[in-house]
């Protein structure tokens, strides 16, 4: 049991150190996606050549901002793990769930919503080229929810360990 405690402390120390670097990386990704989203905003002006292009831009802008939000949540998650060194906590499980839901939203909402908006405004949607469902974002969303389940199991083990001590 004593050797296990030493192993745990070593692993936690490594996780905390690693979390700092990962936090910085995801924070940079947040800035990257937010910048992309902000960069798309001028294309929303009515002077765009093709009307449908504005609606595709809406879809892409929303996607970039949602990705920025997901990356920001991930950065905050790793910052908290780096500060407290406790990876198995209920709030972290909730954060990972929210990230997973954000990915699922990115997968199925922006493009269909933009297409629907275009149709409601009477715009010709023949040249709407964005895929309606992002398979990769869908898979990433389900992956995050699966990781959240595993983290939830980890919180139960953590609770047992704390009560034993």
């Amino acid at each position, binding site marked *: *049991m004593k050797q*296990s405690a030493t*192993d*745990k402390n070593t*692993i*936690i120390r*490594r*996780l905390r150190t*690693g*979390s700092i*670097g*990962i936090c910085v*990386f*995801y924070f940079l*990704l947040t800035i*990257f996606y937010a910048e992309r989203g902000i960069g798309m905003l001028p294309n929303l002006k009515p002077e765009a050549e093709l009307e449908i292009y504005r609606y595709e831009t809406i879809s892409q802008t929303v996607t970039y901002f949602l990705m920025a939000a997901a990356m920001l949540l991930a950065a905050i998650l*790793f910052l908290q793990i780096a500060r407290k060194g406790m*990876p*198995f906590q209920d709030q972290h499980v909730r954060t990972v769930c929210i990230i997973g839901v954000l990915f699922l939203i990115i997968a199925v909402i922006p493009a269909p919503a933009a297409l629907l908006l275009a149709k409601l405004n009477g715009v010709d949607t023949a040249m709407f080229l964005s895929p309606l469902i992002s398979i990769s974002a869908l*898979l990433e969303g*389900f*992956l995050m929810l*699966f*990781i959240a*389940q*595993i983290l*939830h*199991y*980890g919180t*139960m*083990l*953590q*609770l*047992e*360990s704390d*009560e*034993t001590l």
Partner: protein
Amino acid sequence: MDKNHDARKQQTNASIRRSGKIALVIAILILLGQIISFLYKVTFTLRRPDTLEDESFLSYLNYIRYGTVPDLIVRIILTLGTMIPVILLLRDISRKGLPFTIQNGTRMFIAGIMQGLLALLPVLFQFVQMIRYGDSSDSSSLAYLIQPNVLNYLNLSFCFLLLFLAGLFRYGAALQQESDETL
């Protein structure tokens, strides 16, 4: 430890086992898709005509360069190196419902390293080209290496995630061992 806690643990195990089975099927399908895509790209690249057959969009699609055969081979090896440990991990989870083992931590670690290599591979190829044909000390050339179309940030992101999960699984394995010893 109250019975409710044990019951919740059992339910979570069962839920993880179910999700693990679905994830295992999806991972196997992704791996098969990657292999089929690799075989198609290699055969197309080897048979690729020197000019477009006609001006149609389909002809252009058929002419798309997938990269050289050695590049494709290295990529599929690294992809297999990522997916096989993940599939073994998911198979383990789907059978036992217990994700936290030292073995699973090692599998995550290997998958993470492979993803990192996959992300850095284009950068390495570009750098080798720069050394052979260009000025590798030029700062603008070096800045090009970290552009999103060269350095794959998605693969890098998965690399960091998998390496972190490897550490997390090892911590979880220590907790699992404590829990089993207590019981």
